[in-house]
């Protein structure tokens, strides 16, 4: 929960873009016969509300109420003193501060005459919200709207692509600090990385390490202190203005390391259009994971390429010495053409 810069720059995220996304949502609601849509947000699930309003929470929870053709109402379990800050960072029509979002939503849905209400990721919504909503407004038909929301999430607009590029730039600059050359003590290196990313204005950075790729290909979260072995990897998950990317690289400290790292970079330039379907020369594929933002989570595993989406690729390869890991974001053109770099 280490939030950094949280703000709304209308130069970077114009109101017109958020209006366009909300309009797209209204159309999908009409197609799905929904009188209203509820979109939940909390610290680890900020992305859907952020997509529609720019708002990213630093604490507590909230539910966005979308009624057709109207500016959304944001019901939030933060005290009223925080309302000014929410107004500064969220493109909504009204902020309703309440300790009981379900009750507030029930009252507003009843006033709007809503009969059929869609909920993004219904099964994961805190049950108390649904129970309190139903107590306030009986007889309402509540349906899951996860697929509907996913249908409007892509293709990425220019704003999403631009902010994802900025997140990638921040990550690459910070990740360069993990290159061999310093005392390979993890905490001091990761401290430099964290500081660099936040000084560049990132909203959040998650750091994973695989400190000895000759022993294990698994990333882990550093909790305490460790030392990097000869071959190691660092992966940064960086958010900038609500847009997340993962960038990871393998580093080697021995003499041949620089050549191998350069060769993999060259391979990445050539192979990114296919999302690295085949491994570089000298390596065999261990596994490959694709992630994208399709719901409330910033990144979630998806089975394959999504046209028009910012995708994040994590690939693991093997050679005789051990494993080699890379993570790289890319944008898939809306027509399904080759993936393009975000650098």
């Amino acid at each position, binding site marked *: *929960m*280490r*939030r*950094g*810069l*949280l*703000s709304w720059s209308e130069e970077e995220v114009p109101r017109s873009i958020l209006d366009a996304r909300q309009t797209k949502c209204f159309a999908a609601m009409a197609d799905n016969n929904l009188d209203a849509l509820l979109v939940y947000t*909390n*610290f*680890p*699930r900020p992305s859907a509300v952020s997509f529609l309003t720019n708002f990213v929470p*630093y*604490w507590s929870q909230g539910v966005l109420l979308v009624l057709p053709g109207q500016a959304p109402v944001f019901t939030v379990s933060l*005290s*009223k*003193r*925080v309302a*000014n*800050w929410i107004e500064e960072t969220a493109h909504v029509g009204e902020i309703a501060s309440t300790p009981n979002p379900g009750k507030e939503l029930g009252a507003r849905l009843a006033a709007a005459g809503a009969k059929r209400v869609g909920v993004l990721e*219904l*099964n*994961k*919504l*805190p*049950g*108390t*919200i*649904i*129970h309190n909503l139903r107590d306030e407004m009986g007889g309402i038909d509540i349906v899951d709207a996860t697929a509907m929301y996913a249908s409007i999430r892509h293709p990425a607009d220019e704003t999403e692509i631009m902010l994802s590029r900025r997140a990638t730039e921040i990550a690459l600059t910070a990740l360069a600090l993990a290159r061999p050359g310093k005392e390979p003590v993890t*905490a*001091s290196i*990761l*401290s*430099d*990385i*964290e*500081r660099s990313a*936040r*000084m560049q*204005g990132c909203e959040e950075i*998650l*750091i*994973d390490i695989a400190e000895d790729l000759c022993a294990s290909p*698994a*990333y*882990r*979260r*550093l*909790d*305490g*202190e460790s030392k990097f072995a000869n071959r190691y990897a660092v992966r940064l*998950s960086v958010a900038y203005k609500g847009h997340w990317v993962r960038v990871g690289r393998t580093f080697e400290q021995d003499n041949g390391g620089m050549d191998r790292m350069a060769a993999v970079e060259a391979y990445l330039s050539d192979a990114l259009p296919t999302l690295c379907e085949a491994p570089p020369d000298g390596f065999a594929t261990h596994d490959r*994971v694709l*992630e994208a933002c399709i719901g409330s*989570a*910033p*990144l*979630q*595993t998806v089975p394959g390429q999504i046209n028009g989406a910012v995708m994040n690729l*994590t690939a693991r390869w093997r050679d005789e010495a051990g494993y080699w890991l890379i993570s790289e974001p890319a944008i898939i053109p809306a027509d399904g053409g080759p993936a393009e770099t975000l650098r």
Partner: protein
Amino acid sequence: MNAIHKERRDRLLAAMKAEEIDVVLSWGNAWQGDYLRYVSDYSVLEGDGIAIVLSDGETRLIVEGETEAERARAKCPDVIVEATDDLVESARAVLKQMGNRRLVTAPAVYLPFGLAPENLDRPAEDGTAFLDKLLMTKTPAEIDAMRRATKMADEGYQVFRDAARVGVAEYELVAEIEGYFRAAGSPENFMIIGTGGQEVRGMHPAGERRVQEGDLVTTELSPCVDGYFSQICRTLVIGEPRQAQIDAFQVYIDAMNAGFGVLKAGVTASEVAKAENDVFRERGLGEYCTSEYTRVRGHGLGLFLDTKPHILEDVDTVLEDGAFCIVHPNTYHPEVGYMVLGDAALVTKDGYQTFSNTPCELLSTAG
């Protein structure tokens, strides 16, 4: 399994046996992770997680996506970890294997709708109070972790104080602190900040505003050690404090001391809050103790940094020997703006014990 979690697990299994509970299901995420961490020793970084613990100690952890599952397997080698793209369905599938064994779930307020009792094809009871009892009273090992977290908060505040200079942006201040905590080995920190004068109504995440001469710079820092959070709240003046700022801050010092004055095992959260608020009321500032201007007058600390009980006048929870909480009469002052002051304390039979060494006074960059 590390020593602190072994101690926690032994307490949990003993309590399950005493209450004749066969299965505990806990939900958590990177925001509210205490119930999950207590039973599994895992703090989720991305997505939600569910831990299912059997009375013989077998523990299953279900997390969303392979990225998180990999982290969980590395951290908790004794736990059976499952990656899923449907958390609720995966949990239901595990529960199906449990037959008619007695199941409790927690925390009720955030439990996913899909796991609410009416959506399960088996009986389930609310286990929130059962786990709260374990969460609210700390063992010696837990207290030691919180003591170390408090020391880290003190050191972090010194870094903050050194970095808070005219011209620095709020987010750059946060970068300095987070860099420090990362170097110190704290995997998590919660931090909000306020900069400015009378117009500032509260703290918030870092923005782009740059610190100016005469600003009040408020912050709360909440690093953690072994999963246990402590917290410190202080107010810093950029430059020489004005007399109005000094006078205003005396209310916060007196209110915090009043809260600590009644704090001991057996008192309620309400009594502590009332003691703090009475100081404001006596000075004609009672309205600034309402939800228009402030949230809570303190709260519990532990595996979640804002855990039960909230220190509020309508909360009757009894603070027991071994509870750990922060007393912080943070609120808006109409003459100078938002001010904060708070220290974490261990509740004891005779009173309380604080571990912080940062002076409880209006601090300034002037000296």
